[in-house]
């Protein structure tokens, strides 16, 4: 006889402090790591196109190392291996959260660099040419023209990276970061009610990703360059333009 699903326990666990704390921690770790990866990935992306061979090689080495190293191993390296070598990292300020943040950021930056590079390359070279013809400097063209257009291209794969990273945060449990899945495992080990306990964890992940997807679509619309009054997706502007043609 299979025991019936304990709805009461499910709700209990869903609302329990370790769960929402764990979820917040997972979200915080994901956002922080993705943000840092973005900031680090941008110069890496530019470095790949650098005129200096040394810079290109360094960027290649970075990308090669962090893509080849399993994330779990990287977490262990940052948390266990490095402090053994450098004792500064044994002090109190070096928390598991910080270690996870560093490992995930470094890892993710290698992927973000590729995404950003593809985004920059996808912008029509005619855009830069027009900027130069007007006397704009390279950084001005980058900031005003290339980056805003690359952002639109970069948003969907970055959304994917967010989701991947969110799931990877569960690996941080091995270095005793109390994220969501750690909380679920602890619950499971006391109650043995796997369906309720992991079901509740699943709900959290589903909700987080749903919210992300909503925000992503808003952001995509924000970086679609049409005037608001003309409606979002339909090429009304084109029809109006054709009508206007003399």
């Amino acid at each position, binding site marked *: 006889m299979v025991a019936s699903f304990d709805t009461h326990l499910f709700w209990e666990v869903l609302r329990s402090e370790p769960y929402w704390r764990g979820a917040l921690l997972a979200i915080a770790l994901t956002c922080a790591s993705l943000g840092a990866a973005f900031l680090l990935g941008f110069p890496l992306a530019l470095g790949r196109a650098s005129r200096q061979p040394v810079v290109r090689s360094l960027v290649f080495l970075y990308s090669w190392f962090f893509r080849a190293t399993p994330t779990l191993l990287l977490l262990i390296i940052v948390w266990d291996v490095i402090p053994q070598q450098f004792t500064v990292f044994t002090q109190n300020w070096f928390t598991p959260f910080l270690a996870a943040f560093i490992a995930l950021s470094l890892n993710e930056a290698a992927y973000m660099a590729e995404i950003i590079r593809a985004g920059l390359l996808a912008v*029509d070279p*005619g*855009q830069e*040419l*027009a*900027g*130069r*013809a*007007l*006397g*704009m*400097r390279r950084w*001005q063209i980058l900031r*005003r*023209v290339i980056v*805003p*257009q690359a952002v639109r291209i970069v948003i969907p794969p970055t959304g994917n990276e967010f989701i991947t990273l969110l799931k990877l945060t569960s690996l941080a449990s091995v270095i005793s970061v109390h994220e969501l899945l750690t909380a679920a495992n602890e619950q499971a080990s006391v109650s043995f009610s796997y369906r309720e306990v992991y079901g509740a964890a699943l709900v959290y992940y589903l909700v987080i990703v749903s919210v992300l997807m909503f925000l992503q679509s808003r952001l995509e619309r924000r*970086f679609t*360059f*049409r*005037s608001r*009054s*003309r409606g979002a997706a339909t*090429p*009304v*502007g*084109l029809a*109006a*333009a*054709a009508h*206007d*043609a*003399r």
Partner: protein
Amino acid sequence: MTETVLRAEGVHKSYDGLPVLQGVSLEVGRGEVKVIIGPSGSGKSTFLRSLALLEPVDAGQVYLEGEQVSGLKEKELATHRSEIGMVFQRFNLFQNMTALGNVMVALRDVRRLPKGEARERALEFLARVGLRDKADNYPEELSGGQQQRVAIARALVMRPKAMLFDEPTSALDVELVREVLDVMEGLARDGMTMVVVSHELRFAHHVASSILMMDEGKIIEEAPPEQFFSAPSHDRTKRFLALVEQP
């Protein structure tokens, strides 16, 4: 004799050892309109880009109002580029900006004008190309002809010493060509110094001070329109004119 605005002297340019420009010289006086024609691959576009200082030349010089402007450092080049207006075949409007934004951006970033002033002047120039009411539209909401007119306004607003047009109508549907040519004719009438790469021979006939024939990286013939069309001296020109529509 009118004052020379733009002058190129013996411009050479190769890509991977392949010669594209083989000693091209040109002199454009104030208010003159020079139309360059020639088969594809003859180096017209490359030459125009050299004049716009977008393409470093291997040998030869470009002078703007008597001052040598080729072969300078990037910073000085950028300054001189802003004094030469360039209009591209494919418009190259900044896709992330409205028509107004496109016309304003270099006034802000290059000329360092305050926002209000830049906006005012940009709107004035949009009005000049008849697109004041499209100020808030993004490029993809405009027809090709309208986009090209915005691109002309974007170049004009910098008050350039000369305007360069690289096949400005060849990416346009036939019914949109006229509106762009009208704007260009207006500019010519107002005394703008222009170099136009185009196969709009009717436009060339009406507007050009002289027409230049380019072939294999050289200017092989230059003559006033009447003479160019009625009595071309070069055989290559005769053959080329026989292939394209007569004005």
